[in-house]
């Protein structure tokens, strides 16, 4: 996904050219000279067929196709139809069509627009849900993408989210303050604690050269048990009167406000994510700090020789990354699931965010777009499961296939027999 985001994908044009290419598969790769002399129309066609936009569309298409196969082979009706396939093959096809279209239509209804809804707010609610789920994915994705740009792998999203969320919850439930102070304070403390937690990996890397992949993975577990411990102590996080490892619900004064009123679940966490996107974009592309992150990420030896403190860059990248990932945890506790923090508050987002960062190519707006896409899958998945009884796990399969195909344009082009740019 490019820096500019998905809005420059010419969906209409691609369709037309797509057909053209299919009709003319001979127009293949080897023919460099001919293309060089070809008409402007040909040049434009070539630009589109070799461009990223078409590959993106086709990647999604391919991933959905494989998802369909899985649905087909496990759908009870389709299998039933196949049992008498030779007697009445049409049934199999009808069932197959029902299964697949049912799945994707419900995915759409759950993610974007529900035409079955009786009121307007019910109809457009799915898109707001999508944005709600996109917020933590984007925040954590930004954090992880930022470390990627600095040449680091932050696999520690889970731990950072847990610590950030738990710290925010602590401030929220233990203090009694007016909202104007309480909410910002809880957010800040959450981000800060997560930043320090992430910073451990950066510090150890800078001081001892410890491989950050190991350290962050280990810190996930350590963080999990720490938070779990806190949740079993009344003095720390556990709700009074309860034996469950869960905190009290968040007080009103520390809850991220709703963006579209009480009828929708979309809360200010999404605003936080959008702001963070701009902030990270600024850091990476316009700030000296971000310049140094990128320099260190691309060539640490050259950066060092040019006077950049590489260890400090590692440490500060992890601090910022931890803070962003921590905000995802804060978003969960103070926004999405406000009835109390638990040791499951990360909800797998810390890992999903790695994929989001990869899909967004570690570019801030790419990550925002990828976060929204994944949020849509998430939100649509619930609807699909409820209406079609298809396990949401299929969404994982489709998501990961999209990322893989997007990362390998030549493969997609080979599958669809498109010309490749570097003929």
């Amino acid at each position, binding site marked *: 996904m490019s820096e500019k985001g998905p809005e420059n994908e010419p969906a209409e044009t691609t369709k037309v050219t797509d057909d053209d290419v299919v009709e003319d598969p001979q127009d293949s790769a080897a023919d460099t000279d001919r293309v060089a002399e070809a008409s402007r129309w040909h040049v434009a066609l070539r630009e589109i067929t070799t461009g990223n936009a078409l590959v993106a569309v086709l990647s999604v298409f391919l991933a959905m196709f494989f998802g369909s196969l899985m649905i087909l082979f496990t759908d009870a009706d389709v299998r039933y139809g196949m049992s008498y396939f030779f007697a009445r093959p049409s049934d199999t096809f009808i069932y197959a069509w*029902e299964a697949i279209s049912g799945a994707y239509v419900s995915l759409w209804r759950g993610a974007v627009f529900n035409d079955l809804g009786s009121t307007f707010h019910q109809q457009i609610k799915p898109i707001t849900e999508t944005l709600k789920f996109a917020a933590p994915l984007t925040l954590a994705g930004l954090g992880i993408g930022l470390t990627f740009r600095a040449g680091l792998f932050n696999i520690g999203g889970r731990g950072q989210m847990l610590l950030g969320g738990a710290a925010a919850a602590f401030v929220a439930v233990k203090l009694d303050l007016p909202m104007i102070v309480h909410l910002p304070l809880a957010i800040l403390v959450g981000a800060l604690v997560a930043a320090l937690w992430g910073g451990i990996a950066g510090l150890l890397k800078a001081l001892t050269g410890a491989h950050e992949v190991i350290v962050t993975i280990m810190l996930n577990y350590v963080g999990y048990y720490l938070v779990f411990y806190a949740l*079993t102590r009344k003095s720390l996080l556990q709700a009074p009167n309860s034996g*469950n490892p869960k905190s009290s*619900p968040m007080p009103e004064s520390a809850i991220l406000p709703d963006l579209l009123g009480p009828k929708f679940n979309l809360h200010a966490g999404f605003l936080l994510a959008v702001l963070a996107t701009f902030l990270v974009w600024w850091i990476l592309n316009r700030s000296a700090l971000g310049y140094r992150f990128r320099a260190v990420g691309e060539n640490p030896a050259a950066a060092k020789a040019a006077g950049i403190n590489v260890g400090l860059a590692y440490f500060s990248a992890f601090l910022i990354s931890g803070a962003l990932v921590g905000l995802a945890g804060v978003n969960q506790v103070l926004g999405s699931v406000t*009835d109390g923090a*638990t040791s*499951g508050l990360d909800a797998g987002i810390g890992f999903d965010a790695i994929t989001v960062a990869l899909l967004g190519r570690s570019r801030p707006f790419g990550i925002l777009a990828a976060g929204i896409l994944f949020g849509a899958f998430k939100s649509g998945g619930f609807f699909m*499961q409820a209406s079609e*009884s298809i396990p949401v796990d299929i969404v994982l399969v489709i998501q990961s296939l999209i990322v893989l195909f997007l990362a390998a344009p030549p493969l997609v082009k080979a599958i669809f027999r498109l010309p490749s740019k570097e003929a």
Partner: protein
Amino acid sequence: GGEAPAERAGEGNSDYLPCIVSDAGGFDDKSFNQLSYEGLKEAADEIGTKPKPVESNSENDYAANLESLVGQGCDTIVTVGFALSAATIESAKANPETEYVLIDDAADADFDGKTDAENIKPILYDTAQAAFLAGYVAADYTKTGVVGTYGGQPFPTVTIFMDGFKQGVEYYAKTKKKDVKVVGYEGGEKGSFTGEFVANEKATNTARQIIDQNADVIMPVGGPIYQGALTAIDDSGKDVALIGVDADFYETDPKTQDVVLTSVLKNMKTSTNDVIIAASEGDFDATPYVGTLENDGVGLAPFHNFESKVSETLPDEIEEVTAGIKDGSIKVNSYLAK
């Protein structure tokens, strides 16, 4: 699709729609999610309807899943596990027309002793009572004088088993003046936990360590983790007996038949079934239900293959203890006991 052949699976004639949401364990957890779902399915078959089950993978999913189910027009929604409590209360308040059944939690977030929404029926089980009996049986059965237990995570719904078990053993030791020791649980949250409700090497290994402490009865509490104990028992080459939890393992998992001494029953299947049947007939009753020995909500499974191996007097003694617990002359402490 209306034009489908009549034999097509699961099509019914009632328009009553029962639904169920699992917690993060999913419906294959060999524990409360699975049993509640099975109870719901049976009820649905009896009524002639097709239930809608949805699984949650994380706590993110609870509210969204409930919302989708409401959108699907469910009449009754069963939510399984304390983790869904808050989401259930919220959904119930927003949808007063829909009926909710919450398993394993009182739905009392404000701790005023009352259910927070009138359309939620909380179902709880004082499994400590039944586990007490199991502890008594184990203490009687053991030859080494050591019995063990371990859990998935120190949640109250887990430790309540271990707690009751421990009290049962201690009661036996005191009344019979026999030295019997419990390993793997010391009370509160102190004990042996695998950290996850997953059948894995950690579960197997924990069972191994318990057997290594000379235990010859072992009670794993936490869905599929008992499968680890099966492997450990098999590997040890010793005569170690297993005590099942939730359902009668002898029936739900034939692989356990040679080793299962008895099981601590938590009759979620029956309770769910009953509530759904009643609800389908318009008799939804939101009063909280606490399963006890008294109302057969919890109990002890038969000894099956072990009938000949336990002491002859044991069945009568169990009767006696049961009566004692019922009439209150024997106290079993748990977070649910008044």
